[in-house]
C-alpha cells in the first residue's frame, strides 16, 4: 500500500515537473529580439549614401557609408545572431535612390538624420552616445559642406 502510494506520488511529481518542458519544446522558437533602436539611423545613413551617390556628392556618400557601417557594426555586436535564423537583409544594394534626386532633398535628409540621432541620445547607454553624437555632428558638418 505504502509503496504504491509513493509510486503514484512520484508519478505525479514527474508529470508535474516535465509538463512545462514538453510545453517549452513544442512551442514556437522564441520571437526574434525587438529591432535595435539604431536600425532607423543605419537605414537613413544607407539611404543618404545612395542619394548622395546619385547626386555625385562623393564626400557625403562616403561619410554616410561610414556612418552606416559603424552603426551596423554596433547593431551586430549588440544582437548576436541565433544560428540558423534568417540573415536580415541589410545589404546596401537594397537601397535605391529616389527617381529624381535633388540636392535640397539630400540636405533635408541630412538635417532629419541629425535630429533623429540627437533625439535618441538621452535614452542611450553610455557606450553608444559617443558614436551617435558624433554621427549627429557629422551630419551637421555635411550640411555645412554642401551649403
Amino acid at each position, binding site marked *: 500500500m505504502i509503496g504504491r502510494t509513493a509510486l503514484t506520488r512520484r508519478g505525479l511529481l514527474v508529470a508535474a515537473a516535465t509538463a512545462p518542458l514538453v510545453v517549452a519544446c513544442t512551442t514556437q522558437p522564441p520571437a526574434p529580439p525587438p529591432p535595435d533602436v539604431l536600425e532607423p539611423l543605419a537605414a537613413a545613413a544607407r539611404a543618404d549614401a545612395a542619394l548622395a551617390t546619385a547626386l555625385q556628392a562623393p564626400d557625403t556618400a562616403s561619410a554616410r557609408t561610414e556612418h552606416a557601417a559603424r552603426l551596423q557594426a554596433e547593431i551586430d555586436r549588440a544582437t548576436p545572431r541565433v544560428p540558423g535564423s534568417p540573415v536580415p537583409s541589410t545589404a546596401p544594394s537594397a537601397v535605391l535612390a529616389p527617381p529624381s534626386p535633388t540636392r535640397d532633398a539630400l540636405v533635408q535628409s541630412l538635417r532629419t538624420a541629425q535630429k533623429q540621432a540627437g533625439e535618441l*541620445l538621452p535614452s542611450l547607454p553610455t557606450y553608444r552616445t559617443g558614436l551617435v553624437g558624433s554621427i549627429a555632428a557629422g551630419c*551637421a558638418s555635411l550640411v555645412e*559642406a554642401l551649403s
Partner: protein
Amino acid sequence: MSGPGGFGNGFGSGFAGRRVGAVTTTAAAPAGSDVDAVQQALAAEHAAVWTYGLVSAFVDNQAPVSEGANDHRARRDATERLLRDKGATPKPPAPAYLPPQPVENANSAVAALIAVESDVCTAWHGVLERTEDADLRKTALDALTVSAVRATRWRKTAGVTPVPITLPGTAVG
C-alpha cells in the same frame, strides 16, 4: 580628418593640452566622473578663446572670427557655471597655448582655428561618452555640433579636402 600637414586631427594636435607655463592645479572634483571630462572641455574652450584672440589680427574676414570668439566665450562661461553647480572648481586658463604651428599669416591662422575647433570637438565628445546626465549630454552634443560646423567652415576657407568631417570628435575625424 586628413588635412594637409595633419591639421585638425583631434588626437594629433593636442592643442588644448599644451599649456605654456601651465601650473598644475588639482581641483577638488567630487568623485563621479563626468567632472574630469567637463574640465577637459573647459580647457579646450579656454584654448579656443585664446586662439580666436591670437588669430584676429591675421584673418581678413573678421565676422566669423568674432562670432567664433563670442561663442567660445559664452561656452566657456557656461561650462564654468556647470562645474560649480557640480561642486567642482573650474580649472583656470593657461597663460598661453601652443598652436600646432606658429601663427604668422592668414593660412596658419586658419589652420590654428581648424585645430582648436577639432580639439573642442574631441573634448565634448569625451563628455558625451562619460555622462549619464541627459542635460549634460544635450549640452555636449550642442557644443560638439557647433564646433564641427565651425571647423567645417574653416576647412572650406582653407581649401582643406574633404571639407566635411565624417565623425567629429573621434580619431576618424
